[in-house]
């Protein structure tokens, strides 16, 4: 019987496992430290859940391997072959100074040294016409030169190949003849968008990470086979859709934010169950705070992101990450200003209260001092926190230099951390044309529950939702992902010149292309859906707006499409120019292969009996009070339970704080929904 699904999310400090029994809806979770060999952790988690691999239908994997390889600059030694006259594009970049006051500003170092960047004579013009044919002798010479340098991989990018990839494809064939051992990526297979630097960067990063991801996934596959796993292993992509191992190995750059993407997909799934379309996904981890938006049920995407200032052209869920989390360090600058983060303590030694030798004051230490955390019940009693050590670091590092009380210092740290997160959410929402008051917050990650109430108050959001098992919520989100393949292609046209028929043809061709990549997923055609978008703008502008294309648009000669551009431009930029000429820049087809979603298990209704675990003194600065908060065990709460703030609700991976003037209610699938209580 194939009836189980498993999601594995590798994060910075932990590997999270969530298994789902499709028949009973039972969820089991496990956390393991993420240090050491990843392959090993992967199977240790499976072992500790006592999972029968033969009963597993699917494993969905979110991995940080690609992003870590890029951040740590530990990828393969690779070469680059490009159009004659343009070998320096990778190093020239866009020439901008991101830090205008930094006299020592320097762009990130090129991942391919100049002597490994070779040129070949060939050229297309901006319409895709061949100006200079590919010089095959020169091409072979370049490949041999890189072979002699013993590179592991070759990135190939020619100008305007987004229109016609013929030269790139021929070049790849030549590499396969001359140097079959090399890992190869041609730019047109990974992105079909204009802007040569960004495309080069994307292609280079893909080859740079390819050998490592190939080795890792092959190792997993081998061991799974040895253990008689008969299902499929899927990899989460940055777009929020899953893909096959094979596709991930060819396009590692598509998986850079695969872990955080799981959380956002989970938020969208939760929203669809709750009937809420507008949600802020707020993931509070140990070192970072990740924010994303779900609007009208869809996670907001971006077509480009960067990793350590290196651009990547790929459809990606729009996630903003700031250095704020439980491990963020509180410190005083030379002008006696108090700051929280962006630096944080590593998992080892961690906050001072872990008692593993940490000597810096962190947000977690402050939360312990304020009474938010129970030293005896951290990580479900797996860890004892040392309150005295927390008090010592906060007193010595913050309270004494400021001449204030221990409690005031701790409350100050928590308050500043709250405000940093609130500003991050505010900025991402208004920047993308939304009003935070029209959104509900979904707070997850190990630290989400302690910030939910504060963020609700600060942002005047509709409600703050803390899902069950918030610490492993991103892994749970992975279980909700559909298969997804995208194709973005630069298609620069004046809108007025494009007829409905012509656009339809283009999109059909794009769709066929994407569908051809769906063959090995075993998804029935009836279970697929295609979404089309156009990146559009007004003539003379640089920035574009992503506009959905609906099938009804072809019936009215694209008039509604044009009106949709005006409406979306108005939303994003508070401006629309219905009388200005419009342009299409890119077309995108996204094909989804719909997977069966996990059934959300209904909670049993409220039982009689004592829910209250006890009372604890907590300090809540905004109310200027020390107050007795009721303490509840989340496991004892049931559907319909209501808790009045101030209250603390504990579960094994997380703690939730409900403020005075707030109430938390448990819904029928176990979410805690915190709202303001009108006085």
């Amino acid at each position, binding site marked *: 019987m194939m009836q189980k699904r498993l999601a594995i999310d590798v994060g910075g400090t932990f590997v999270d496992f969530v298994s789902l029994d499709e028949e009973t809806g039972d969820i089991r979770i496990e956390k393991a430290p993420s240090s050491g060999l990843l392959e090993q952790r992967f199977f240790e988690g499976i072992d500790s859940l006592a999972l029968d691999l033969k009963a597993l239908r699917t494993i969905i994997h979110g991995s940080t391997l690609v992003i870590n390889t890029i951040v740590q600059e530990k990828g393969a030694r690779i070469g680059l072959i490009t159009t004659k006259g343009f070998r320096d594009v990778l*190093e020239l970049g866009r020439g901008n100074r991101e830090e205008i006051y930094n006299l020592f500003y320097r762009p990130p170092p090129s991942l391919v040294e*100049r002597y490994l960047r070779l040129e070949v004579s060939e050229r297309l013009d901006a319409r895709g016409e061949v100006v200079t044919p590919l010089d095959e002798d020169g091409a072979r010479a370049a490949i041999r030169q890189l072979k002699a340098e013993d590179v592991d991989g070759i990135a190939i990018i020619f100008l305007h190949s987004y229109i016609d990839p013929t030269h790139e494809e021929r070049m790849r064939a030549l590499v396969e003849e001359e140097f079959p051992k090399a890992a190869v990526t041609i730019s047109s297979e990974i992105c079909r968008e204009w802007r040569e630097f960004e495309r080069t960067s994307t292609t280079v990063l893909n080859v740079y990470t390819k050998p490592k991801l190939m080795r890792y996934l092959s190792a997993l596959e081998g061991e799974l086979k040895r253990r008689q796993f008969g299902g499929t292993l899927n990899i989460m992509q940055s777009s929020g859709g899953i893909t096959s191992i094979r596709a991930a190995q060819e396009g590692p750059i598509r998986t850079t934010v695969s872990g955080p993407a799981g959380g956002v997909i989970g938020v969208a799934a939760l929203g669809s169950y709750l009937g809420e379309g507008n949600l802020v996904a707020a993931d509070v981890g140990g070192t970072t705070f990740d924010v994303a938006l779900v609007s009208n049920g869809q996670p907001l995407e971006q077509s480009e992101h960067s990793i350590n200032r290196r651009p990547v052209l790929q459809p990606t869920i729009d996630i903003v990450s700031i250095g704020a989390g439980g491990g963020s360090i509180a410190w005083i*600058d030379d002008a006696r200003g108090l700051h929280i983060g962006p630096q944080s303590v590593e998992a080892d030694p961690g906050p001072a209260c872990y008692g593993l030798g940490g000597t810096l004051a962190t947000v977690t230490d402050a939360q312990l001092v304020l009474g938010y955390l129970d030293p005896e019940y951290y990580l479900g009693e797996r860890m004892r926190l040392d309150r005295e050590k927390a008090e010592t670091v906060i007193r010595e590092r913050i309270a004494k230099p400021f001449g204030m009380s221990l409690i005031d210092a701790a409350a100050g740290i928590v308050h500043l951390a709250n405000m940093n997160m609130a500003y991050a959410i505010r900025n991402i929402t208004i920047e993308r044309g939304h009003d935070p008051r029209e959104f509900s917050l979904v707070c997850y990650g190990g630290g989400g529950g302690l910030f939910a109430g504060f963020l609700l108050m600060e942002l005047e959001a509709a409600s703050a939702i803390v899902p069950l098992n918030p610490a492993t919520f991103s892994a749970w989100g992975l279980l909700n992902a559909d298969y997804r393949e995208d194709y973005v292609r630069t298609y620069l046209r004046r809108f007025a010149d494009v007829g409905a028929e012509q656009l339809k043809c283009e999109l059909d061709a794009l769709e066929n292309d994407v569908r051809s990549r769906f063959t090995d997923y075993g998804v029935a055609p009836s279970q697929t859906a295609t979404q089309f978008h156009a990146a559009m703008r007004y003539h003379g502008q640089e920035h574009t707006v992503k506009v959905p294309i609906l099938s009804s648009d072809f019936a009215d000669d694209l008039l509604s499409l044009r009106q949709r551009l005006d409406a979306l431009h108005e939303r994003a930029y508070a401006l629309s120019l219905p009388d200005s000429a419009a342009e299409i820049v890119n077309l995108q087809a996204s094909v989804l292969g719909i997977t069966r979603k996990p059934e959300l298990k209904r909670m049993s209704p409220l039982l009689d009996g004592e829910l209250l675990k006890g009372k604890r003194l907590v300090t809540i600065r905004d109310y200027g009070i020390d107050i007795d908060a009721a303490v509840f065990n989340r496991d004892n709460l049931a559907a319909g339970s209501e808790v009045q703030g101030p209250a603390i609700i504990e579960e094994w991976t997380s703690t939730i704080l409900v403020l005075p003037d707030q109430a938390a209610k448990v819904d029928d699938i176990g979410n805690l929904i915190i709202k303001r209580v009108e006085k």
Partner: protein
Amino acid sequence: MSKVDPITTQVIRNALKAAADEMMISLIKTAHNPLIYEVQDFGLAITNHRGEMLAEGSGLPGFMGCLGPTVQSGLRALGSAGFAEGDILLANEPYETGTHISDTAVYMPIFFEGELVAFSALMAHWADIGGKTPGGWCPDTTDIHQEGLIFFHDKLYEAGKLNQTFLRFILKNVRFPELVHGDLNAMIAACRTGSKRYIALCERYGADIIREAMEQVFDQSEAMMRAKISEIPDGAYSASIMMDHDGVELDKPYKVWVTVNVSGAEMNIDWTGTADTVKGPTNHPFVGTVAMAQTVLKSLTMPFDPMNHGHLRPLTVTAPDNTAVSPQYPAATDSYGYVGEMVIHLIVKALSQAIPMRCPACSYQMFGGAIYRMDPRHGEPFIYIDPLAGGSGAFPHADGPSGLIFVGDGNAPNTPTEVIEGRYPLRVLRHTFNLNGAGKGKYRGGFGVTREYQMLEDNILIQTMNENTIETPWGLYGGEEAGVSELTVWTGSDRERTIRGRVYFYGPFNKGDIITQSSAGGGGWGDPSERDPTLIEYDLRNGYVQPDDQ
């Protein structure tokens, strides 16, 4: 007087910074003109009721410090009582606002409970201001009236009511009224955002607490800046350079001279020795000269600290009247940026005598060209402006970065080849490093950039800009000076010519003609004979340096 606790102080400081950020988001999102949303040619600030900066958000470094004086000029002109709730004012007279009249300031007084408590202010480069050159940046004006419309704290809104006549007058006198109107509305919206946030903060903490907290922040920032200046050895440090010419008197180089006087915890930056006000538009208004000096001080001491008025207290900037860095009415200032760029580098050069390890060598100077065709009889009109990136001066501990835009252009990105070719009748034949013209040294200057264009149609012209072609960017401590940026026209033909002039119009070029722009590198740092062999090996391996050039 009760002190505000340090946590509340920090919360207020962060809130003001967040308010400035929100103004910036609002501006970028709603502006119509790519100079604002793309090049980020703007600056913005929230000041207190005296026009002292509480928080800033800036796109280009030159704007920092211009907005406080702009508001203060308004306070002098109108008096505190001259402002009413809902006023929106315009100001751009460069002697009051610091740059050129294209950078028009829009600001609004903020009232809480009937009292003037603060200002939100921003200045941004307008798409046009009605001067003799479309879009501003006139190369050859000789007085300010040729450069466009002048505003002197004029109220576009009076107590919340729009002055329709004034608006119509503005829009009738600029070339791209739709763009200008859009930008103006974006600037007003941003001011109102800042005002709204400031008032919300007052409602939460009270105007007095905010005032007191920020006085404390000023004092702390001042103390920190004093401590940083104290680390610099006392002394008088000078540097100077000859600029090519002012665009009008073409055979007349002129000098810019700075002396940095460090004495204990205070710094004075004095411009005595700088040439008299020049006839052409390359004068740099004194408010801007002060702002640039503040920018450099911040960059050298605490580049990542959010700036406020307190940081600026230990610094005085002085200059005799009527020099190229302190022009008075009616001197032309529209091309102020050439001197502005050098003002930054000269202060760094002067201070390199005191704190060598914090001072890079000089970078290439502003260079680029506008390739265009205006006459519709010759084909579809277009203009493509290419401010070419170049080499930065070497650092005291590393080679200078290659191919970065000049400091004054901030975070502006280049235009990709694929976009140029998709949009204009041009083909880019090469976009590579220019391996000539980087100063050697223990650490060498960064390399400049070469971009070569072939014309795909007829009747195309180029206007160039260049600077410091006579006295070139310097090296430090034995590092060699950099070369000169240059334009080659009709490359590869028998008409080939290389031009190093500061401002030139060339053409017309016809189909097949080639022009080549090559920017200079940066100056070197330290004696070339001390260069680390592994760096030499790296340069040779990568072809940055030829074996016979060692």
